[in-house]
C-alpha cells in the first residue's frame, strides 16, 4: 500500500512537471469558452462529443508518452527488479491519469453549465471511461517503440471504440454497438442532460463499463508482463 502510494505520488509529480496539468487547465478553459460561445441548441451535443473525445480520452493520449519515455530511458527492467510490482505500475499510471481526466471533465461541465443536470451516472461514466482508455493505451504502448508508432497502432482500436458516436450524431443505430464499452460511456455522459436513465440503462452502464475496465486492466497487465519477459530474454 505504501509502495502504491509512493508510485502514485511519483507519477503525479512527473505528470505535473511535464506540463500535463497546466496543459489541461488551459484546455479546460478553452472548452468552457467554446461551449459558452455556441448557440444553445448545439451546446449539449458539443459537450458530449468534446468530453468523450478529449478529457475522457486524455489518458490514452498521454500514457503512450509515459510508457515510451520510460522504455527508452531503459527504466523498465531495473524498475521491475525492485519490489515494485507490475500491477502497481499499471494501477498508479491509471489512477493518476484518470484523476486528471475526471478533474478536467468536471471543470468543463461546471464552467459551461454550472450544477444543472444529473451528476451521478455522468461522473461514474467519466471515471470508468477514463480508466478504460488509459489501460487500453498502456496495453498498446508497451509493445511500441516510437510515439508515431504508438498513435498509428492505436488508430485500429480507437476507430472501433469511437463507432458508437454514430448514434448521438444521428447517423445510424446498430444494436451490436451496445457490446462496446464506449456505447455505455456515451449513455452515461448523455444522462447529464437527457431524459432520466431507466433502471435498466443504469445497470447496463454500471456493469458493462466496470466489466470492460477490469478486462482492460487484466489485458494491459498481461501485455506488460509479456513484454518484460520478452525483453529479459
Amino acid at each position, binding site marked *: 500500500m505504501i509502495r502504491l502510494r509512493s508510485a502514485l505520488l511519483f507519477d503525479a509529480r*512527473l505528470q505535473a512537471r*511535464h*506540463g*500535463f496539468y*497546466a*496543459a*489541461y487547465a*488551459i*484546455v479546460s478553459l*478553452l472548452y468552457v469558452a*467554446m461551449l459558452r*460561445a455556441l*448557440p444553445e*441548441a448545439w451546446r449539449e451535443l458539443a459537450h458530449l462529443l468534446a468530453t468523450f473525445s478529449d478529457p475522457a480520452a*486524455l489518458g490514452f*493520449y*498521454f500514457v*503512450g*508518452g*509515459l510508457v*515510451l*519515455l520510460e522504455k*527508452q530511458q531503459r527504466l523498465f527492467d531495473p524498475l521491475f527488479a525492485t519490489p515494485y510490482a507490475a500491477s502497481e505500475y499499471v494501477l498508479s499510471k491509471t489512477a493518476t491519469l484518470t484523476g486528471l481526466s475526471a478533474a478536467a471533465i468536471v471543470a468543463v461541465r461546471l464552467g459551461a453549465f454550472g450544477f444543472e443536470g444529473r451528476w451521478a451516472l455522468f461522473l461514474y461514466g467519466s471515471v470508468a471511461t477514463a480508466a478504460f482508455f488509459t489501460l487500453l493505451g498502456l496495453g498498446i504502448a508497451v509493445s511500441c517503440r*516510437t*510515439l*508515431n*508508432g504508438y*498513435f*498509428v497502432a492505436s*488508430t485500429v482500436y480507437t476507430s472501433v471504440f469511437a463507432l458508437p458516436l454514430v448514434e448521438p450524431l444521428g447517423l445510424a443505430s446498430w444494436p451490436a454497438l451496445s457490446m462496446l464499452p464506449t456505447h455505455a460511456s456515451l449513455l452515461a455522459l448523455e444522462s447529464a442532460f437527457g431524459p432520466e436513465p431507466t433502471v435498466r440503462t443504469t445497470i447496463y452502464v454500471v456493469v458493462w463499463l466496470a466489466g470492460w475496465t477490469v478486462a482492460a486492466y487484466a489485458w494491459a497487465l498481461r501485455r506488460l508482463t509479456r513484454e518484460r519477459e520478452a525483453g529479459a530474454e
Partner: protein
Amino acid sequence: MIWLRMSVVDAKQTLRDPMLFFMTAAPLLILAALRYAAPYGLSLLPGDPESGALDFAAIVSAVALLLVPLLPGTMAGLLLLDERDERLVAALAVTPLRKSGYFGYRLAFPFVLSAGYAAALPSASGLLPPGANALSLAPSLFAAAALAPMFAVLMGALAANKLEGLAVSKLSGWVVFAPALLLAPEPAQWVGALVPTYWIAKSYVSAASGDAAAAYGWGIGALLYLVALFVWLFGKYLRRIE
C-alpha cells in the same frame, strides 16, 4: 540526392510502419469530410440559410484548411522529439546528411505535403463562391502549408522531451479554431491576431468574399509573422539539441 535516398528509406519503412501513410492519408480524410459532410452540417444550421450561410461555409472551410497541416506537422514534431530523445540527431549530424539536411528533410516533407493538399482544398470544398479569385487565395494557402513545419518546430522548441511534447501538442492544436473568432464582433476578435492562424483565416475568408486587397494584406502579414516565429522557435530548438 541524399533526400532521395532518405525518401526511399522512409518509403520502405512505410511498408513496415504505416506512419507516413497516415501523414499522407489524414489530410485526404479532411478534404473528404469537407466535401461530403460539411454541406450537410451547414444545412442543419439554425436560422435563415440565406443570411450568413456563406460566412459559416468560408469559416468551416478555413478551419479545414488549418487542419490540413496539423497532423503532418504534429507527426513530424513527434519524430523530432523521438529522434532527439534517442540522440539520433547527433548521430545523423556526422553522416553526409549533416544536421541541416536532417532538418530540411524532416520539415520540408510535411510542408510540401500540406501545400499540395492546401492547393486542392478550395475547389474540393465546394463551399466557396464560384467568384472567389484563385490568385488571392494563394497567400493563405501557402501560409497554411507553412504551419506544418511550424507545428513541428514548436514542439521541438518548447518541449524538453516527448512527454512535454504531447502536452504542447494538446494546446497547439487549438489554433486551428482561430477562424471561429471571425464570428465575434470586430474589436473583440482582434485578440485573435496573437495567433498566426487568425491572420491566415482573415486572408482566406477575405479572398472567399472577393476582397483581394484584404486577402493579400492579411496573407502577407501572416507569412511575415510565421517567418519571424519560425526563426525564433528554430533557434530555441537548436539550442535544445546542442
